[in-house]
Structures are given as C-alpha cells and as structure tokens.
C-alpha cells in the first residue's frame, strides 16, 4: 500500500512539473533550431540560471564557456565561444533551442544537448560508468533550461 502511494505521488509530481510544459521528446524546433515557448510553461529565474550555468553538478556550462560577468567562478573553459553579450545578439527562442539541443542549431556541434532523453549510444547511469537503468532524465529539467535562458538574456554588452 505504501509503495503504491509512493509511486502514485511520483507520477503526480512528474506530471505536475510538465502540466504546462513539454517533454524532451516532444520539443518542436524551428528551422534554425529555435524553440518558441517556455519548456516548463513558466518564466525563468536568472539568478538560479547563473548558478546552474556555473555549478559542476548542474549545467556546468563554464567548463566550456567563459563569461566575464562571473568573475567569482574559476577555471572557465575555452571549448565553446565566450558568451559575453549573447543575450543581445540572440533571442530567448534561439537560446532555448541551443540549450535544449544545440545540434538543431549547430550541426554536429561538440556542445551536449541538455534537454534530450533518447538517441544516445551507451548512455550511462550518471558518471558511474555503468549502464543507465530505466528511463533517462534530461541533464537539465524544463525549468532549469528556462532559468539558464533567463540568465543568458542578462548577458548584454
């Protein structure tokens, strides 16, 4: 009985999170890889986005991108372009598409897809080196993506 209640609660939470949003496999990308509407159905929070961007266990975007607006974050990477001013020359729709699945915008790019759950070769269970069990979670949740996009929009020259 307890187990059923727990599973049910789990389903309800997962369902609730996406009630107004869109699941990773259902995202519609435009011609240039842009995504029109919020993935979660809610607004993004730029402060949370800044944290996700900078934290290793979250987006870890700084491992590849440098941003001058984050002087407190050490060891910013060089694999991707520096993102100063990106909120000025890219729209929120474009940025949402790039964070969700950059391959839709930049064919073959090194940048991982953060809101995607299928089509991987030998997906692992996090960083354990073991095979993933059960359905995969995206690296970032729908709301995480919105938060990161909100943070990127604050990067204006």
């Amino acid at each position: 009985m307890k187990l059923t209640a727990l599973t049910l609660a789990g389903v309800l939470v997962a369902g609730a999170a996406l009630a107004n949003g869109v699941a990773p496999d259902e995202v519609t990308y435009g011609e240039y890889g842009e995504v029109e509407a919020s993935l979660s159905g809610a607004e993004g929070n730029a402060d949370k986005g800044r944290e996700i961007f900078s934290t290793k266990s979250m987006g870890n975007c700084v491992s590849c991108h440098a941003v001058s607006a984050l002087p407190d974050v050490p060891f910013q990477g060089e694999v991707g372009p520096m993102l100063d001013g990106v909120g000025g020359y890219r729209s929120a729709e474009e940025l949402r598409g790039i964070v969700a699945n950059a391959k839709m915008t930049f064919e073959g790019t090194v940048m991982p897809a953060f809101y995607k759950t299928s089509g991987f070769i030998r997906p692992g269970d996090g960083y354990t080196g073991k095979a993933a069990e059960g359905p995969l979670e995206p690296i970032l949740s729908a709301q995480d993506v919105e938060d990161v996009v909100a943070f990127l929009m604050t990067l204006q020259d």
Partner: protein
Amino acid sequence: MNFRTMTAAAAMLALTAPMLAAGGADDDTLIINEDLEITTKAAAAPHLDGHLDEVISGWHFRDDDTQAMEMDDFDNPGMIFVDQGIDQWNAVEGSEEKSCASCHGEPEEMAGVKAVYPKWNEEAGEVRTLQMQMNACREERMGAEPWKYDSADAINMEALLASVSRGMPVNVAIDGPAAEMWEKGKEMYYTRYGVLELSCANCHEQNYGNYIRADHLSQGQINAFPTYRLKNAKLNGSHDRFKGCIRDTRAETFSPGSPEFVALELYVASRGNGLDVEGPSVRN
C-alpha cells in the same frame, strides 16, 4: 612598416598573447636525465591526413612543475615502479620454474618492443597488447597465473618495458591482419558516446590545447604510458584512462582488457606513430 603600424601591431600582440599562452602546446624540450632527448612533436602519420598535421605528446600540455618531474628519473615517481618491475622480471614463478630473465636476459634486450605494440601475433591469430603478450609468456612458458589487466604487477612490467624503449619512435603497424582491429578502434575513436555525446576526437582532435574547465586538453596520445598521475598517486595504464574518459561522457564504459579497448589501444597508439616512447611519464 612605419612606426605607427608597428606599435599598433605590438599592442595587438600584447592583447592576444595571454590567450595564446593559455592554449596550445608549449615549446619546451623534453630531455631526460640531461641526456636522452625525446621526440615529443612529429609530423602526423599519413593515416591522419585531414585530421592532424602534427602529433604532440601530452607532456607539452602540463605545467612546468609536472613537466620537470619527468625530466629526471630521481624525480619521476613512476621509476619506483620500474624498479619493482625489475624484481618481477627476475622472479622465478610457475610450474616451469622460470623468470622473464630465463628466456629474455636483461630487460634492456627488450628495447624497441614497446614501440611496436599492440601487434599482430601470427601464431595466436590475434592482435596482442603488451600486457596480453606478457600474460601469454606467463601462462605458456612459465606455467604461471596471468596478471589481471592494468593491475599493479602488469603495469609495473609495462613501465619497465616502456623505460627501456624511451627515445625510440612509436611505430605500430596498422595494415595486414591488424587492419580489421584497427578499423574497429578508429570507429570507436569517432563514436559520440554517452549522454554528453562526446567522442575521443571531440576533445582530443578538435579541442586539444583548449581548457575544459581546469583541464588542459592534450591530443590523448599514449606514447607516454604507463603514466604516473599526481591525482591518484599511482601508475595508470592506457585502458584505465580510456575507461575514465568514456565514463566522463556519462556513458556505460568498457573494461580494461576488453576486445574493444584492445582495438582502441591499437588505433590510439598508431595515432602516435613518430612520437618517441616516453613512459613511465608524469601527468596530473
């Protein structure tokens, strides 16, 4: 060029210089024990056409302190394990009451061997890594138990065999009967594994010289293996390194000694053809 343009050019240089210093391989020269100069940069083998022009040892991507440790055998912690390897070389083991020395004499007799492995073994009909060959000797000629792949014993011996080949160019054969395995390894090298969908090439071919967080990406060459890592304070085999790199793509990785990693070792070793054997090396 007039004075004005010269100053402008100099100013530009000053601006871009720090960025250049951050990336890329340095121009230092690796001389071990003030005596043995190691070729750490070489023209890429023809099979790398369109991929790399120059092959570069991982040594060029480490900081000066780490580099210096490899320049003197007394400062290179990897050499302690070479000494242990010498003891193992002389140890009589197994039902035949033989040691490596019984058949091969001094370890120096093995100079040049490390440089051509992995290598096709005609009799066995398989590509063998050095560790596979060591174990074949143990089982077939000594009547001794094989060593576990990348275990301390196996790595000590690999380090000894590397050390006597230092300064000799890697020259791994990729044609003939080895070709099939080599193709498999090549395919793996360009496969984008895991939830991060990253291949070896994404990091070590497209981005060597760039920082990924605090890590300065090298070409991921294995001419310098086994390698003593400051991070785990032990000697590491190439398969252990492959395992870690694939794990870091959030993938289900492969095991040391697996046919997949034997193929990958053959392929990655061949990417280093022309670089000198450098192991045991020091890395962070």
